[in-house]
């Protein structure tokens, strides 16, 4: 017998009178402290849809990672007719285009990039679209209209890299829960009320806001149309779990139809959705198997998000990632846990559908998390290597809100109230080389920074080097800030995220998320100069080509304060320099120590460094110690990274930790316990982020040689997960060469 779910009323609160999803969650959440024994396997329908999907995925892989491209259409919320995988078995519907895995054009970030991406696949963007962009301006054009020679030099010489100046910036997380809780009509009404508020004497800020709010309203109306094409009316609030999940997904789908930002995160929807699932379960409307089926099929859809990327993009973001980051767990400020049965159900998808890099499941780890959940997470890590961990006990008090998700890879983001602007990253070792070469970059000798004196011949003097390096970093910060100002100004102007922004407060706070790569090389290089004798070897132009190191020096990654405090000091210095500059929309500077897979590309473009790293050798990923130098064991390695202060790098400090299963213990039970303790220990040291891989090197070698046998093998790299077989060969080898903690 099926009963009327609405008969069980939700607990009322502020959410009834104002737009306040948080109040709804706090009032209605059912924390779950048990273990994973209640979970269900995949339903017959799920298996059917997933089998059909797997066939399409195999064709996509065989076709060089891209199934098809629609070159005729500019993608937006309503551009495509509905698409299905296996309509009769799909309980959650909606695809980015009308055909599964078909990619679409989103040219407002940069038409040139879209054209070259199509061309690389033997296709041409249609004449109509080319013609449109003879009249319409795009983000990329706008940015280069405003760039100055300094920025261009920093950019072309690989000091500033991966800047979102020819592709979408991403990172902006809509509060997709709003659609389910309120329905589109109510959201439009809230936006209209906001619009009215922005009146009186005009300022640039107000004019912009008025325009923005109206585009957001237009987006909401388009979302309603899109849903109607699928036969669903999302004008009103969702009444069942199935609707709630579907409404949330439509919100997200609208975002990925319009934007192809590097990272398009989902936020923290699972425990919100749990409230609906719990109610439907209680009223007998659905069974546990059906609850899991809804989650499985939702997650399946999230795995199928695709964007059209050029090959050059793969260098910085290898493996075709989309960063559909969903945060699970964490604690509420009132002491209760945010873990619900649906947190488990999301993890269960890694068993029901097999391991996968997307969605990028991120555990907000607190010492207070229920034991059953901690153990299940560790088990999932050991079985799938698909999830990452972030320190909730660190972020919550430091950043203020307990209603947050993770933007992109590792970055805290309060949901619905604030956003962040993606800032890519600066190459710190390159900056060090510039300072050792009198302001010139090391390959051709182009002057990048003016006023840096030549260093005296002979061994490098630590104080002198530190002085010129800091002067270089100051200049780098100045130019970096300018570049970001221009980029985000233009992105708003030409490629505004109306879909996500329609689900966010109208005038949100903004962070500007700067980044830095190569911190471990900096720590080691400066430690080498300080504690050993380092003499530059220069070519006829006087540029450093190598360094002679005499004597031993302490290296980052061994819990040795000598190099570790250098890493701390430089991070602190750099963010403070960045904080000195004007930012677009008065955004607040943050910094990440993160590389994605670009650590390989950075290495290629950076000459030999004073730590003994040869020219062209990859950097370590994120804030990791350099390969093989963390020789004092896993804990010492973790402790070194944990010393980097979160207050200096609030955008995230990424650490990727790989170990072989055996090193975690003899039995599965012991392995789970020991992994829980490892994560707990690391976070007790106030560390921020941990990617966990539990894999044998042999498995990776085998996957390298026989990729067809490992379609779903997933590994964590800096801040995200990828299908190993979708990485380039160079990236694959880099991962295999990385430190595996065999004896920990």
């Amino acid at each position, binding site marked *: 017998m099926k009963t009327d779910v609405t008969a069980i009323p939700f607990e009322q609160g502020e959410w009834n009178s104002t737009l306040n999803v948080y109040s709804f969650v706090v009032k209605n959440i059912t924390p779950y402290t048990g273990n994973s024994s209640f979970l269900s396997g995949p339903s017959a329908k799920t298996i059917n849809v997933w089998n059909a999907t797997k066939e399409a995925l195999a064709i996509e892989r065989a076709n060089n990672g891209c199934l098809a491209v629609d070159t005729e259409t500019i993608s937006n919320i309503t551009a495509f007719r509905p698409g299905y995988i296996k309509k009769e078995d799909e309980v959650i519907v909606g695809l980015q285009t009308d055909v599964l895995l078909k990619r679409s054009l989103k040219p407002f970030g940069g038409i040139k990039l879209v054209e070259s991406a199509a061309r690389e696949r033997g296709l041409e963007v249609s004449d109509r679209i080319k013609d449109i962009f003879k009249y319409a301006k795009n983000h990329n054009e706008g940015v280069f209209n405003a760039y100055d020679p300094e920025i261009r030099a920093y950019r072309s010489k690989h000091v500033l890299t991966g800047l979102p100046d020819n592709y979408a910036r991403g990172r902006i997380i809509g509060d997709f829960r709003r659609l389910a809780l309120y329905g589109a009509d109510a959201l439009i009404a809230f936006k209209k009320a906001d619009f009215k508020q922005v009146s009186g004497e005009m300022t640039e800020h107000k004019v912009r806001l008025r325009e923005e709010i109206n585009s957001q309203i237009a987006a909401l109306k388009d979302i309603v149309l899109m849903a109607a094409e699928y036969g669903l009316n999302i004008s009103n609030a969702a009444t069942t779990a199935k609707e709630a999940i579907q409404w949330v997904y439509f919100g997200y789908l609208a975002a990925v139809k319009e934007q192809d930002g590097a990272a398009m995160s989902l936020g923290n929807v699972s425990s919100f959705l749990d409230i609906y699932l719990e109610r439907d379960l209680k009223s007998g409307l659905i069974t546990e198997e059906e609850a899991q089926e809804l989650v499985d099929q939702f997650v399946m859809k999230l795995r199928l998000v695709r964007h059209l990327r050029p090959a050059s993009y793969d260098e910085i973001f290898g493996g075709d990632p989309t960063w559909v980051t969903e945060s699970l767990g964490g604690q509420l400020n009132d002491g209760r846990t945010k873990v619900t049965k649906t947190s488990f159900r999301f993890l269960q998808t890694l068993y029901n559908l097999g391991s996968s890099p997307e969605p990028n499941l991120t555990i907000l780890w607190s010492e207070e998390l229920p034991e059953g959940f901690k153990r299940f997470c560790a088990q999932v890590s050991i079985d799938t290597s698909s999830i990452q961990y972030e320190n909730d006990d660190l972020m919550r008090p430091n950043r203020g809100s307990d209603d947050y998700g993770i933007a992109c890879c590792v970055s805290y983001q309060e949901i619905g109230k604030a956003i962040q602007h993606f800032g890519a990253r600066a190459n710190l070792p390159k900056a060090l080389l510039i300072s050792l070469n009198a302001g010139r970059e090391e390959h051709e000798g182009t002057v990048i920074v003016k006023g840096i004196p030549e260093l005296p011949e002979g061994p490098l003097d630590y104080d002198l080097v530190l002085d010129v390096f800091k002067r270089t970093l100051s200049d780098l910060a100045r130019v970096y800030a300018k570049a970001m100002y221009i980029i985000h100004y233009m992105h708003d102007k030409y490629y505004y995220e109306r879909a996500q922004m329609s689900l966010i407060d109208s005038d949100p706070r903004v962070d500007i998320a700067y980044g830095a790569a190569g911190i471990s090389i900096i720590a080691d290089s400066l430690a080498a100069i300080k504690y050993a004798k380092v003499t530059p070897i220069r070519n006829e132009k006087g540029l450093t080509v190598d360094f002679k190191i005499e004597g031993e020096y302490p290296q980052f990654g061994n*819990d040795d304060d000598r190099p570790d405090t250098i890493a701390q000091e430089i991070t602190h210095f750099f963010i403070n320099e960045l904080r000195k500059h004007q930012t677009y929309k008065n955004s607040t500077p943050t910094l990440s120590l993160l590389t994605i897979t670009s650590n390989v590309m950075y290495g290629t473009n950076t000459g030999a460094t004073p730590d003994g790293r040869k020219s062209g050798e990859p950097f370590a990923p994120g804030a990791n110690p350099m390969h093989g130098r963390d020789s*004092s*064991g*896993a*804990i*010492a390695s*973790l*402790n070194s990274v944990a010393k980097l202060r979160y207050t200096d790098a609030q955008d995230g400090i990424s650490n990727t930790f790989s170990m072989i299963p055996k*090193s*975690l*213990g*003899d*039995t599965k039970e*012991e392995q789970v*316990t*020991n992994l*829980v*303790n*490892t994560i*707990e*220990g*690391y976070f*007790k*040291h106030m560390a921020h982020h941990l990617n966990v891989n539990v894999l044998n090197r042999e498995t990776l070698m085998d996957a390298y040689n026989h990729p067809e046998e490992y379609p779903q093998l997933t590994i964590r790299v800096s801040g995200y997960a990828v299908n190993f077989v979708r990485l380039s060969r160079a990236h694959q080898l880099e991962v295999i060469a990385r430190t595996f*903690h065999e*004896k*920990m």
Partner: protein
Amino acid sequence: MLYLPLQDIEASKLNIDDPEHLRIHSLETFGTHDGPGIRMVIFVQGCQFRCLYCQNPDTLDVKAGELIAIDELVQRAVRQKAYFGKFGGVTVSGGEPLLQRSKLSTLFQRLHKEGINTCLDTNGRLNDVHVHELLIHTDLVMLDVKHINEEIHRKLTGLTNKNTLALADYCESIGKRLWLRYVLVPGWTDQEQYIEEWGQRFTNFKTVERVEIIPFHQLGLHKWELLKMDYPLKDTPTPTEESKQKTLAIFNKYFDNVILK
């Protein structure tokens, strides 16, 4: 017939000289195979057994290795304490820890002051008052009983098993938690009747929490070569799956918790 002299005098000095320093071979910061949980493992230098299969022949010479201050070891353990969780801590392994039993008493007491669990991995070579004193500060003893038959034990290790058995009895008498370990070496320790006898000897011990079977492997081979010593078991194969399962089955008759490593 010993491949390295016993070093009796040097061995006894090891316990007395430099009371604030431990002679160690190496440290491991994330041990998950030497006792419960995550452990810092201190491999001490010096051993008087001369096991034919020794996988760490470089830890035998009591004059080799390096001296490290006990306080530094404690500090290092404290830096790692957050990872130990409820069950982990510090394990002293070797080599043979009991050769430095008095210093280890100091170390373990200081670790206990820091709230860190202590575990001793030993072959039971000694069983004197100093060892008994050390046991007061030891939370768990992992005792390697290499062979139950005195004669074969002597052939296999160069020394008697009497002290080892006496130490086991002493632990039982004072209620000290025990994990027993058994290295399974083809042709040396895989005789069924002796495994049965081994099981019978300890089956009624109330202190035995776990028995670990450690299959012989050849990973120590290169160390013998490095030391330019003749490795007596260089042609010995690793135990077959069948032999491992058979051994496991026998142990399972006598103990509740047997782990085949």
